[in-house]
Structures are given as structure tokens and as C-alpha cells.
């Protein structure tokens, strides 16, 4: 039940952020982007029993990025539109907050822990986008070579 509420929250939140980042003219893009974010969180929930926090973020973001790139090719729009919104459930907002909390309560061990978690999650997001973008670039290059031949 808790997971369902989380997914609902993620969907609503992403919906809000699509408006904040000014996707106003196309409701279908808003829905696709929000669905991408929710999908990412569902994947995160599926893999979290088996993997660490950071690895789960990596897996979730890979799915979000894949989904975004594929939808971008279908809709013929830049993939950023979907990635920017879809990454939000996985962005370490909670990490930033908790790190600060432990810092002001002088809890050094937890502070270092959550600092590493936060930076690690940010790096995981970045790595995931890197992997997927490179993958799609390679596909594009191969396709162009075919055209020349």
C-alpha cells in the first residue's frame, strides 16, 4: 500500500514539475514525462530488495533514460524533455536534507554516510544517462553508416 502511495506521489510530483519547467502546450508530453518518472520509481522499488541504494538508483535511471530516449524518437522531440522531469523521483533531494540534518546534530558517522549516499546517487544518475546516451549515439552512427553504403 505504501508503495502505491509513493508511486502516486511520484506521478503527481512529476506532473507538477512538468508545469514548472514549462511544458504547457502539449498535455501528452506531460503525461509521458510523468509516467517515465513513475516507471523509474517502480523499477527502483523492484530492485531495492536485491541491490544497494546507489545501484538501485542506477538501474531506475537507466530505465528512465531508455524510456525517454525511445519516446523522444517516437515523438520527435529532444530526450531532455522527458529525462529532466523523469529523474526527479530518484534525485537525492532527501539525501541533501538528511546530510544537513546530521551535520547540525553533530552526528559525524551518519553525516559521512549520508553525504556519500547523496553524492553516490548523483553520480549514479549521471552514469545511467551516460550509458544510455552513448548507446543511442552508437546506434545512430551505425544507422548513418548503413545509409552511406
Amino acid at each position, binding site marked *: 500500500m505504501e508503495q502505491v502511495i509513493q508511486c502516486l506521489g511520484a506521478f503527481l*510530483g512529476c506532473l507538477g514539475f512538468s*508545469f514548472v519547467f514549462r*511544458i504547457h502546450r502539449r498535455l501528452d*508530453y506531460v503525461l509521458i514525462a510523468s509516467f517515465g518518472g513513475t516507471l523509474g520509481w517502480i523499477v527502483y522499488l523492484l530492485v531495492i530488495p536485491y541491490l544497494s541504494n546507489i545501484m538501485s538508483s542506477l538501474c531506475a535511471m537507466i530505465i528512465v533514460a531508455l524510456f525517454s530516449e525511445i519516446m523522444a524518437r517516437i515523438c520527435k522531440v*529532444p530526450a531532455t524533455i522527458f529525462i529532466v522531469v523523469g529523474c526527479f523521483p530518484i*534525485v537525492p533531494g532527501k539525501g*541533501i536534507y538528511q546530510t*544537513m540534518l546530521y551535520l547540525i546534530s553533530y552526528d559525524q558517522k551518519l553525516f559521512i554516510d549520508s553525504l556519500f549516499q547523496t553524492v553516490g546517487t548523483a553520480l549514479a544518475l549521471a552514469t545511467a544517462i551516460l550509458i544510455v546516451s552513448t548507446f543511442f549515439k552508437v546506434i545512430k552512427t551505425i544507422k548513418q553508416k548503413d545509409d552511406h553504403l
Partner: protein
Amino acid sequence: MNEQLLLKNIAEIGRLLLKNGAEIYRVEESLERMCQSYGFKDIGVFALPTYFTISVTFKDNTSASYTKRTLQNRTNLDAVCALNDLVRKICLEKPNNEFIEQQINEINHLNPIMPLVFLGYGLGAGGFALFFGGGLKEGVIAAIIGFLMYFFIWINESLKINALMRTTLTSMFLTALSIIFYHFKMINNLDATIIGCLMILTPGIAITNSLRDIIDGNYVSGQARLVEAFFIATAIALGVGLMRILMKGMI
């Protein structure tokens, strides 16, 4: 066709792309492709997050260059979409100057629907408060704080307060409001409410865009955005921490 004017229009498209928050590689690639499709030679494009320069040689062997600077960039994905379509069209159909000018004008008048942005702040904050373990009460209160943040950020922007200070102040503002609501027992989960509202400020775009820039070898731009992301995160933490220390008695 007047090539000088054409280059001016192409540069304007580049400026708009940069201003509306496209990735650097997209700006560079779009400019290069448009120039190529009109048959310009010796195309040199270099873009940074707030600046780009483009120089080309025309068919009659005269050369020209443009430098544009944009401050106060702001993400407007609608405009990025429209510009991307325009670039695609220009590359395929090579339309004339009047057409491009008219399209640029249209995109310039593509004003965001402010009530939707306002709604987005509330929905975003409320949704993420739910997401981080808040109940219905926390969601509603976070949405109200999100709405108030919209006005707070708007005031900050009209006073031309710089981005880092604005983030710190906004983060202080939302923490203070959350603590006040918590003090009067209107919410039970303080953390969920604060994190939900914080999500609006988190540098998600800076993180994702910077890495996409670095992949394409734009190390300088990528670095600049990465530093931006780091500073924004620090500013958020600073605001929350400061307010929590100041209002310790009320928690």
C-alpha cells in the same frame, strides 16, 4: 538570399536555445547543421552555458561571425521543443528569411501560462511530500507552501536577487513555514513536508544536463553546470540548516 541576414537569424535561434535551457551540445549541433544546410563553409561554433560564438565563410568567400551572450537562462521546455522543430525544418527545407523570422517571432511570443506554473509548484511539492512518506495532511500543507514559494521566488526575481541567494532564502522560507505548521500540530511528519518542498529547488536539471555535455566532450560547460549543481545543493542545505537551528525551540 541575403546570407548576412540568414546568419543573424541562425544566431538568434542559437541564443533562444541557450536561453531556454537546451544542452550545450544541442546548441552547437543545431547551429552547425543549419549552417551546413545553407552551404556555408568553415563553420566554427563554440558555446558555453551563457555564451556562444559562431563564424562562417559565405559562398562568395567573405566571412562573418556572431557572438551572443544570454544571462538569466531559464528552462522552458516548450520553447526548446518548438526550436528543435524549427531547426529540423530549416535543415530539411531551407526556408527563406521571412519564414524563419516569423517563426522566431512566434517562439518569442510563446509565453508560459503562469497559472499552470503556479499549479505546478503546488502539485510538485504536494506530490513529493506524499512520495517521501507524508500523509494527506502533509501533502495538502506542502502544496500550500509550494504555492507560497511561487510568490516568494517571484518577489526574489523582481528584486533581482542572484540565484544562489534566492535558493538559500527560498529554502529558509519553506523550512520556516513547515516548522510553523508543525508547531501548531497541522502536520505530523515535518521531514516529508520539507523534503517535498525542497524538491522544487533541487538541481536535477543541472546534474542531468552537465553529464550530457561532458559525454560530448564539452568539458568546460559540463564542469560549469556541475559546479552549479553543487552550489545549489549547498545553498539548499544551508537554508534548511540555518532555519532549523534558529527555530530549534519550535520543533
